[in-house]
């Protein structure tokens, strides 16, 4: 899991953050601070499903559940279903 969290954090910092140069950790607020937009949220969601190998019902997720990398993985664990 730690590896996956690191990969997600690097991916967000490299590909998705609006303001370049901002340091991103697994606890950095992303949605509430405006660091990422709605498009990025969808890309994170798709990446999260890949990294956790879980199917996450999107309708059950709120942006606040995806605010930090740690929260995303906790949400995936809580409501995601393992892929066959």
């Amino acid at each position: 899991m730690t590896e996956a969290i690191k990969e997600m954090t690097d991916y967000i910092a490299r590909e998705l953050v609006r303001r370049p140069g901002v340091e991103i950790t697994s606890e950095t607020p992303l949605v509430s601070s405006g660091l990422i937009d709605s498009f990025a949220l969808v890309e994170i969601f798709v990446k999260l499903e890949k990294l956790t190998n879980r199917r996450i019902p999107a309708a059950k997720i709120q942006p606040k559940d995806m605010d930090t990398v740690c929260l995303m993985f906790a949400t995936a664990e809580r409501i995601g279903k393992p892929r066959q």
Partner: protein
Amino acid sequence: MNLLSLSYLVFVPVVWVLSRLIRSTRGRQILWLAASYFFYATWSLKFLAVLLVSSVVNYALGNYLRRKPTAGRLWVGVGFNILLLGTFKYLPVWSTQLGPGHLPGFLENLILPVGVSFWTFEALSYLFDVYREEELDPSLTEFCLYLAFWPTVLSGPVCRLPELLPQFRNAEPVWDDITEGVRRIILGLFMKTVLSQMLGAGLRPGEGVDFGFNQIAHGWTGADVLILALGFGFQMYFDFAGYSNIVIGTARLFGIRLRENFRDPFLSTSPAEFWTRWHMSLSFWIRDYVFLPLATWKPQVWWRHFALIIAMMLFGFWHGPDSTYIIWGALQGLFLVAHRQYQQLERRTNTKIPAGLASIAGWAVTFCFMLLSWVVFRANDLHQAATMFKALVHFSGYHHFVLSRNFVAMTIVIAVAYFMVAGLRRLADNLKQVPAMSRVGWALSPLMYSAAMLSIVIMSIHKAVFVYLQF
């Protein structure tokens, strides 16, 4: 009773004093609900009847969904609300377009309950939150108060129950709430009754945005269209942001903090940023309950773009079934997709544009696009919008105005003043750390508020109507 009437000026203090006299939470909730229903009933008892039915049915649907949160049960709730909105908001317009005799008489004569789009979206967000298994346990009184809460019932901001429920139970205004509430109300009144009014109706007959769009028959020059787009953009902003300030300020007097609806939208440096600053409560609603579930439905990138365009078209459709609103929404979606493509190209090619230059260019493109898109939004029909865009590309027409010179000058002055005030506010925020500067601010505030109040009184002789009440 509307928020600019003298009766509202009496209504709010009376409810405030009564709510200070009642100590029990439940008693206060019942008082606020009674006050909200009284306020709404002053518009029409029929409107109140529709709101009551919607409240009771949505509360029952929420309980039904909570017992077993399945997609099927959620769709029953969504279906009910779409039916309600369709019947009262869209059907009468379609019926008018079809002409008499196509629909049963009682359907042709339905009246649009004011605020129905706002409180129906609040009801829907409650059902979505219950489906997401949020821990929500409102009593019937609390739920009815959530939908009917008088500051928000007419035109939002579109609230969420998880934010309001704890406040309905524990709100206790302190001195800061009162001062901030009064400040927001004065600011809102100034934006609405002075600035928006001046732009909308002009200072003399035969001037103003409304005259420019409605009375000048196909005679616009390119310069006129630019001024009308600028004027209407700022009229909408001052109208709706001013209204939101009055609403947020009123709720704050009672210790209730509502979500913000506007945050300097015309300073945005990208369309994505603009939609986190303009009509934020609806924009975030669309993001949370439409775009995200839809966009994550399929993993392909093209689908995300398609979902975004659909979500923005829904945003336009929310304003009404006119083709101008839907096309305006589609344009917003396309602009957001284009911006996304540009961002990806920038990353792929590792292009490094200096931050300052990128901000200025981003701001200029966003501001110009948003202003021009208001032409489609405000035009009376697509033909008018097309005529106005044609005028824009007739470069020979830029050397004169059909609009009155007073109105042109006033619009430019108001737009420039907006940016100057925004700049000064940022400067003041930076200087707040300097004690001498904070004393200057303290000394200037009474002067500024007195000037604002004076201009509100002078302008209040004109009959002001909120643009957003029609939605």
